[in-house]
C-alpha cells in the first residue's frame, strides 16, 4: 500500500514537472529532425527532452510561449515568441497568470531597450545580431539548466523536506506543487553568481571593437554620438577596481556590474548615469552603495565624496589608440601632470648615476647625496657639512708612531 502510495506521488510530481499537453514532443523529441533554412544553414528541430525538462522553462507547456502554433505540421515563422506575453502559471498572491510584462517594461526603459523582445525565432538570430546593436532578451537568457548539476543533490534533499519546512506556513497542494520548487531554486539552485553576471555583461562590453561602434544620444543636442574611451573600456577599468579584483578571486563581497547598475526590482533597468532614475546618478549613488551587505555608511553626510569615487577610471588602464579615438581630455588628468613633473628628476638622477658609475666615484670617501646630503649631515650627524666648512690650511702632523717621547708629552 505504502509502495503504491509513493509511486502515485512520484507520478503526480513527474506529471507536473513534465508537461506536454499539446504533444509537441511527439515530433520534436525525435532525433535527427534537421532541415536547411532560408539562409542555407543546417538547423536542428530536435529537442532533448531531458535537457528541456531540466531547464528554466521545463515546466511550461510549449504553447505558452509559441502561441501562433495551432496545429501541426506548423510553419517555421509561427514559432515566434513574445517575451512580454502572460503565461504558464498563476501568480499566487494575485491569482492571475504570471507574465514577464513588468520585466519587459523595465527592460524597454533601460539602455538596452531597443533590443528585440518579440518575434524571436530560432531562425532570426543572425538577423538580430546584425540589426539589433543592443542586448535583446536572449543575448543574456540562454535557456540554461534549471538547476546546476552540482547543486542538484542539495536541491533534492531540500525538496523532500519542502512540506515540513515551507509547508508549515505555506499550505496547500498548489503552492507546494507549483511554487515550492520555483522558490527553492532561488534559495538553493540559483545558477548564477556575481561572476556569472559579469561574464554575461562582458560578453558584449569587453568586446572593444563592438563597443567602439556603439552610438549614444547626446541629451543636449539630441544627436547620436560615438562613445568615448570611458565607455569602450568600461570592462577593463572595472577589472582594476577592488570590486573586480575580489570577484576575480571568488571573494563574493565584490560588487558585480548589475549590483551597481541595476540593483533594484527585476535587475533589468540599466540606465545612463545622467538619467535621474539611474542607480548610478550622482543623487542616487549613496543609496546604491549603501545596499545591504555593501557600504552601509555611504549615506553618512561626511561620506558624500566617497560615493563619487571613480570606478571606471581610465587613468588606471592604457588606452589603445587603434580602438579608442584619441582623446585630448586624458592629458588634462592630474596623473599625467604629476608624471610630467616627476620625469625630469628621474632622468637627471638616472643619468647622473649612470655617468658616475662609469666615470666617477673612484675616490674612496664617504659620499653624501646632492639632494639633501647637507641637511642630513647637519641634522642627523650633527656636523657641519664639508661644503660649508671654510677651507683652512692645515699643518701636516707627524703620525703618532714617529713622535719622540717629549713631543708626545707636549701633544
Amino acid at each position, binding site marked *: 500500500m505504502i509502495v503504491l502510495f509513493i509511486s502515485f506521488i512520484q507520478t503526480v510530481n513527474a506529471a507536473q514537472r513534465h508537461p506536454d499537453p499539446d504533444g509537441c514532443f511527439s515530433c520534436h523529441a525525435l532525433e535527427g529532425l534537421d532541415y536547411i533554412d532560408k539562409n542555407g544553414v543546417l538547423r536542428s528541430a530536435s529537442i532533448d527532452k531531458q535537457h528541456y525538462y531540466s531547464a528554466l522553462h521545463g515546466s511550461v507547456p510549449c504553447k505558452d510561449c509559441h502561441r501562433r502554433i495551432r496545429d501541426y505540421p506548423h510553419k517555421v515563422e509561427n514559432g515566434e515568441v513574445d517575451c512580454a506575453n502572460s503565461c504558464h502559471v498563476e501568480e499566487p498572491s494575485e491569482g492571475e497568470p504570471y507574465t514577464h510584462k513588468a520585466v519587459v517594461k523595465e527592460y524597454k526603459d533601460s539602455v538596452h531597450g531597443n533590443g528585440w523582445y518579440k518575434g524571436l525565432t530560432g531562425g532570426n538570430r543572425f538577423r538580430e545580431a546584425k540589426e539589433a546593436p543592443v542586448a535583446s532578451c536572449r543575448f543574456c537568457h540562454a535557456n540554461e539548466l534549471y538547476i546546476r548539476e552540482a547543486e542538484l543533490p542539495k536541491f533534492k534533499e531540500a525538496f523532500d523536506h519542502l512540506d515540513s519546512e515551507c509547508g508549515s506556513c505555506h499550505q496547500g497542494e498548489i503552492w507546494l506543487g507549483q511554487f515550492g520548487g520555483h522558490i527553492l531554486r532561488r534559495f538553493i539552485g540559483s545558477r548564477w553568481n556575481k561572476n556569472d553576471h559579469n561574464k554575461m555583461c562582458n560578453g558584449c562590453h569587453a568586446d572593444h571593437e563592438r563597443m567602439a561602434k556603439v552610438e549614444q544620444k547626446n541629451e543636449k543636442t539630441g544627436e547620436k554620438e560615438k562613445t568615448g574611451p570611458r565607455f569602450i573600456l568600461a570592462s*577593463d577599468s572595472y577589472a*582594476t*577596481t*577592488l570590486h573586480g*579584483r*575580489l570577484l*576575480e*578571486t571568488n*571573494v563574493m*563581497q565584490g560588487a558585480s556590474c548589475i549590483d551597481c547598475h541595476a540593483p533594484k526590482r527585476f535587475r533589468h533597468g540599466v540606465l545612463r548615469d545622467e538619467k535621474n532614475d539611474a542607480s548610478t546618478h550622482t543623487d542616487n549613488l549613496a543609496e546604491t552603495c549603501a545596499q545591504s*551587505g555593501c*557600504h*552601509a*555608511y555611504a*549615506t*553618512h553626510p*561626511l*561620506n558624500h*565624496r*566617497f*560615493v*563619487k*569615487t*571613480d570606478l571606471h*577610471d581610465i*587613468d*588606471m*588602464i*592604457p588606452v589603445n589608440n587603434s580602438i579608442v579615438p584619441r582623446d585630448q581630455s586624458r592629458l588634462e*588628468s592630474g*596623473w*599625467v601632470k*604629476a*608624471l610630467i613633473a*616627476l*620625469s625630469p628628476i*628621474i632622468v637627471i*638622477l*638616472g643619468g*647622473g*648615476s649612470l655617468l*658616475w*658609475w662609469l666615470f*666617477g666615484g673612484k675616490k674612496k670617501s664617504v*659620499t653624501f*647625496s*646632492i*639632494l*639633501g646630503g647637507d*641637511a*642630513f649631515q*647637519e*641634522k*642627523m*650627524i*650633527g656636523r657641519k657639512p664639508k661644503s660649508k666648512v671654510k677651507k683652512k690650511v692645515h699643518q701636516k702632523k707627524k703620525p*703618532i*708612531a714617529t713622535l719622540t*717621547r717629549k713631543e*708626545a708629552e707636549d701633544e
Partner: protein
Amino acid sequence: MIKAIEAIKAIPNPQKYRYAVIMASCTLFFSPFLFLPGLVDNPDLCGKVCIRRFYLFFPGMSPADVSGKMQVAAIGVYILSLILITTFFFGRMWCGYICPVGGLPELVSRTFSDKWKIEYRALPQVPIRYGYFSVYLALMPMLGISACTLCNFITIPRIFDAFSGNPKGLAFALSAVGLVNLALLFLLGFFATKGRAYCQFLCPVGALDGLVNRLGAKLRFTRRIRVERNRCTGCNICARNCMTGSIKMVDRIAVVDQLSCMSCHECVDVCDWGAIDWRAAPLDEDPKRKKKGVDFHPQPQWQAVYVSSPLSKNK
C-alpha cells in the same frame, strides 16, 4: 665589474644574508612563481590578502561594517596580526627582513651611487609618516580617493607580472596611474638613499608596525636595537648607514628612534665598538645625561689605551 665585486665584498656578512632573504621573499611573493599568494589562489597581494585596507575609517561605520571589511581581507588580517605580534617581541622583522615590496627598492638603490640620490633621512619622518597615515586612514576614504592608487603593493608585483609575460602587469605599467606609481618607486625607492623612503613616509603597515615597535621597546624583555651609551664613541658610522634614518647623533651619542627603526642590524654590523646591539634590555638605566659641567658620560677607556700604548712600548 671589479668595482661591483669589491662593493659586494665590502657588505658585512649578516647583511648579505638579509639581502638573500629579501630576494628569496621576492621569489615567494611575486610572479612568475607566486608561491605564497598562490597558496590562497590569489594572483597578487591585493583583495583577500591585502594588509592595507581593512582598517580604513569611514564616518558612520558600524561594527558590522568593520567586521565585513575584515572578512573580505581575512588572510590579510591574519598576516598583519602576525607581523605586529612578532614586532612587539623582536622588532620590525617583517619590514627589515621579509617585506619584498620595501626590500626590492632597497636592494636596487644600494647598487647605485649615493651621490645621485635624494637624501630623505634628514626630513622629520615621524610627523610626516603619521600625518600621512591619518590622512590615509580617514581623509582619503572620506574624499573618495582610492587607497589603492598610490599603493606600492600593487605597483611592484605588477612590474614582476610584466616581466613574467602577464599582460595585466604591462597594462598597469603603461597606464597613467601606473606610470606615476613607477615614478614614485624611482624617487622614493631606487633614487632614495638606502631606498626606504616609501617605508619611512607612506607605508601604512610600517606606520602601524612602528607604533607597536615603540610600544614594545618600553618593556625590558623585548629585543630592540639599543645603544650602550658608555661605549658609543660618536663616530656616527651607524647614523650614516642606517637605512631608515632612525639613528640621530645627539651630543655625539647615537640615539635610536624606535618609531622608525627596522632592526635591520646594519648599525650593529658596522659599529667597531660593540656599542649598539639588538638586545633585550637597556644596559644603562641612568637618567638622561645632564648638561654643562656634569660628567654625563664617562670618558671612554679606549682613548687612554690608544694614546698610551705606543708610549708604553717605548718604555
